[in-house]
């Protein structure tokens, strides 16, 4: 069933497509040098899907970017979530790490890009490093907040049941903090894509950001639009996967909130 909202949404999208066609193709008010017409967009899409552009087909560019995001994101949460758990659990660790964090946190993730290129060049390693740095912070902060927000009786119940340390972390602390951990993961994923696209725009040899960069230099609006749409679809698809994982993992929490 499509509700009122759905119909209006559909109408809006149709109207925008019609407007796009009207402005670029029928009236020519917007020229191809500013924004591509639907036909030019289609031409660019078939070009990069078939013959390729910027050294590869769209599929291989997208796959390469996706691979880097997944790798950087994985490294970031594999380090960030445990550190957040540790900081939440142990006040001494929190006190020691907080000031360092206070200094590093205000540096925007994108500001690491020149340093990463200096250290690791234009290849994959530099990209993974900047994604790691940018996605690390949200996962640490939210995990930490998640641990600190756990109801005290929950911890006390587990300790009166004689729960040993490691089981306490895996079966009590981590699940209790998981709603906020997932909030952190969503922010981390968003940061990963932003950082990767920026890093590929600054310097890369392959990837969606590199396609955007080449299209900008070639003043090729059709291809710019293809690149942007690809970035959007990739971001949307990975968010969808993460949301599905969240719904699975937090089934108890979502039902409890209703």
């Amino acid at each position: 069933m499509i509700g009122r909202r759905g119909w209006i949404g559909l109408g809006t999208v149709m109207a925008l497509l019609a407007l796009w066609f009207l402005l670029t193709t029928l009236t020519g008010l917007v020229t191809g040098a500013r924004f591509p017409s639907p036909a030019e967009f289609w031409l660019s899409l078939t070009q990069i899907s078939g013959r390729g552009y910027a050294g590869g087909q769209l599929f291989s560019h997208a796959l390469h970017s996706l691979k880097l995001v997944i790798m950087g994101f994985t490294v970031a949460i594999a380090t960030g979530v445990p550190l957040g758990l540790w900081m939440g659990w142990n006040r001494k660790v929190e006190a020691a790490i907080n000031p360092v964090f206070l200094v590093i946190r205000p540096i925007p993730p994108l500001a690491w890009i020149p340093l990463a290129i200096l250290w690791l060049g234009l290849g994959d390693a530099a990209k993974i490093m900047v994604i790691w740095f940018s996605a690390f912070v949200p996962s640490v902060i939210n995990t930490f907040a998640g641990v600190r927000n756990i109801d005290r009786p929950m911890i006390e119940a587990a300790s009166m049941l004689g729960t040993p340390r490691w089981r306490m972390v895996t079966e009590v602390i981590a699940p209790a903090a998981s709603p906020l951990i997932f909030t952190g993961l969503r922010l981390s994923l968003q940061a990963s894509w932003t950082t990767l696209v920026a890093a590929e725009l600054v310097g890369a040899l392959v990837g969606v950001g590199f396609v955007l960069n080449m299209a900008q230099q070639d003043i090729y609006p059709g291809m710019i639009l293809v690149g942007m749409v690809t970035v959007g679809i990739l971001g949307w698809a990975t968010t969808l996967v993460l949301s599905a994982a969240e719904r699975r993992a937090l089934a108890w929490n979502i039902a409890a909130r209703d």
Partner: protein
Amino acid sequence: MNSAPLTFRETIAWGILGVVVFLGIWTLLSAFGIVPRQFLPTPLDVATRFVTLLTSPFAGATLPQHLASSFQRYAYGVLLAAIIGVPLGLLMGWFRLLDDIVTPIFDGLRFIAPIAWVPFAALWFGTGIGGPIMIIFAGAFPPCLINAYRGARFVEPRLIEAARMLGTSNTRTIMEILLPAAVPSIVAGLRVSAGLGWQSLVGAELIVAAAGVGFMMVQAQGNVQTATVMTGMVAIGIVGMLIDILLRQGESWLRRRRGLEA
């Protein structure tokens, strides 16, 4: 949690330990050449470079000059985002139809990283000041819109009903009920926007600008002047932090005035 809260003295002691270990490892790595000093200067090298750049120019300007030109673009971009985002958000919260029309567009654009607008921004507005402003706008716009929208959409219905009961006109209800009721949410959105805008600024300057701190860092990267790159990072961090502190102060002042927090 695990242990009782630390005393003030313990917190300071552990904090100092953390910073010392951090700076210690950094210094050891570079001073003993474990990482070539050209690629990882010592903390002292960076501090020295920072002081030098305050007065002597690099990439065409001194650090304060670069910062000033960055900040100018930044202010324009964020201001533009607020001027367009906040009223649009309020109207969306008030008029269901507008909400239903804008939301799908917004949802579609949401997943495109703001930085991906760089090529079009450069194409449409050039690489001087217009292009970067548009990218900052792209980063700062969503929180402005979303928070104003939420503030207006979830305003206490009884306030609206009370205004209606008193025979208040539509325009006046928006100006005198909806807007003030949404202010805390709007201000929270502006703070997030300011942070995201600052991030986008860095990205924009790395890619397209011909002046500003980001530009300075890219130039330094090309010349393998790591200390200058790090100086740029520190400067960006400090300004970002100052912006955040200032807005937090403003926000909590406002909340106190509204009696929302003690």
